[in-house]
């Protein structure tokens, strides 16, 4: 991602962001609310097109590519507010990920020849396998909207993995989780990275999660990258402390004075 800028009308949501993600790397993207984390995400996944700058993935430019094409190239994502297919079963939620890489389409589905059946069986066993890895196998016939919250988050990650990505983007996977679930999630992300040997870009609010697993952290504030480095480097960066704590102090002061909010 090189010098990417996106403007909505007069608002510059993300400004000249450089971001490089290596193979097998686990990178955290953090920043206060409204810093542009999700917007950066949406530029990579093709939901928004950057106003300026370019994004390359493994040598391919992502300019002008639709979200589904980008998924095809090997970038999968989850959403900040879970977006499963609520009326489909857990099994089917993962199964649809396989239509991307399968060879059979409309006409094979109608003719139902031997190759089609083999293919469907292959998909079925792969789906069951990945569900079992993530301990969702026993829910496979449950409609996804009836799953417990933590399991819905997990299913969304599994579904993204089923598209066989090389880069996995997780948008606030710990949001709304209790401490136990967060610990579990941290373990899970590390496990995914090792088991599937893919790169992970993690957008997250929860510092414990980010500091615990990320090898490199990029900090955004008001759409600008203010710091980048290892967890300990970032933790001690004065700009980062300002962005997080300074903001809070400002608000507190404003509230105490009960005057019009600063800026």
């Amino acid at each position, binding site marked *: 991602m090189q010098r990417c800028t996106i403007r909505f009308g007069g608002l510059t949501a993300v400004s000249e962001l450089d971001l490089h993600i290596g193979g097998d790397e686990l990178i955290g993207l953090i920043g206060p609310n409204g810093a542009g984390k999700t917007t950066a995400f949406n530029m990579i996944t093709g939901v928004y097109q950057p106003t300026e700058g370019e994004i390359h993935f493994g040598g391919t430019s992502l300019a002008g590519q639709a979200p*589904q094409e980008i998924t095809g190239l090997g970038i999968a994502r989850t959403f900040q507010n879970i977006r499963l297919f609520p009326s489909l079963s857990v099994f089917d939620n993962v199964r*649809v990920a396989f239509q991307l890489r399968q060879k059979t389409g409309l006409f*094979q*589905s109608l003719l139902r020849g031997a190759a089609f059946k083999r293919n*469907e069986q292959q998909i079925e066993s792969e789906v069951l396998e990945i569900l079992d890895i993530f301990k969702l196998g026993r829910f496979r*016939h449950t409609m996804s909207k009836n799953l417990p919250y933590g399991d819905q988050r997990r299913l969304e990650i599994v579904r993204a993995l089923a598209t066989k990505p090389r880069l996995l983007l997780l948008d606030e996977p710990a949001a709304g989780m209790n401490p136990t679930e967060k610990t579990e999630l941290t373990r899970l992300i590390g496990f995914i990275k090792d088991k599937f040997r893919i790169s992970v870009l993690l957008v997250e609010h929860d510092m414990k999660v980010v500091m615990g697993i990320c090898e490199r952290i990029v900090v955004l504030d008001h759409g600008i990258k203010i710091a980048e480095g290892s967890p300990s480097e970032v933790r001690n960066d004065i700009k980062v402390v300002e962005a997080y704590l300074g903001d809070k102090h400002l608000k507190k002061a404003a509230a105490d004075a009960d005057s019009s909010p600063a800026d």
Partner: protein
Amino acid sequence: MQLGAKRWLFGAVLVALGVSALSGHFNRYYLGVAIDVGISIILAASLNLINGYTGQFSLGHAGFMAVGGFTAAKLTLLLAPIVPEAAHPALFAGSILVGGTVAALAGLAVGLPSLRLRGDYLAIVTLGFGEIIRVIFQTSETFGAATGLTGIPKFTTLFWTWGVAALTVYVVASLVNSTYGRGFLCVHDDEVAAAAMGISPTRYKVTAFVTGAFFAGMAGALYAHHKQVLKPDGFDFMKSIDIVVMVILGGMGNTVGVILAAVLLTVLPELLRGLADYRMILYSLLIIGLMLTRPQGLFTLRRRVDRSRTAN
């Protein structure tokens, strides 16, 4: 799952053959109703792919039916005198296919630009399309203008109708019950998430639209060679509503329910002949009552994911 679709086809073909074998014993009136029922099933099952499974609200199904009907009827009217009697079944099969294909092309022409729209907006566009089609046939001298086409050979039999109905049900059922076809349901549930899974929402929507239009066109062809008279008036907005009602009554995205609803809503007006003038009032009341009491559809006994009970 996969086992379902083939069983469906065999079941439907058996019913079709059984009914055809018995058709000699029917009087003409019952025979006519049985053909009407078959045509309704084709229309409702194909619209169910668009409105039910893919979640797009189309009000243009009568328009596609008209395209198929007029095309096929014109073709047989032109060719029937030339083609020897023995080849008439082949001619009929050909004109059904041509009718379906032209309707599918119309579906593509309407679908490509308009399927970016959602919900109400798509409904309005498809509604407008249906009306445009009707007006085109009403003014076109080639298609007999307001009087329509008359003297169409009576080619439609129970066999043809129920054969095509069986094919429609098979195609819809086997599409939806494949990994590829689950994409229709994904587009219905969440387009953004579908795109993130590598499913192109537009592509699936257009596919559903074109497939649905193809079968609506075939239904139109069967209808034309059944009634032998084709008037543009017969394909107005109310006809589209009739089909939508079948889909809603049966339960969106529930093929069995939609078939039952198609049967019910075709037979019921026949039983209520005396009340024909009040039919639309009854329809409306039915829909209002249904939406209040059973929004999931009259015949939806269990959800689409029918084994969900195993894991509570």
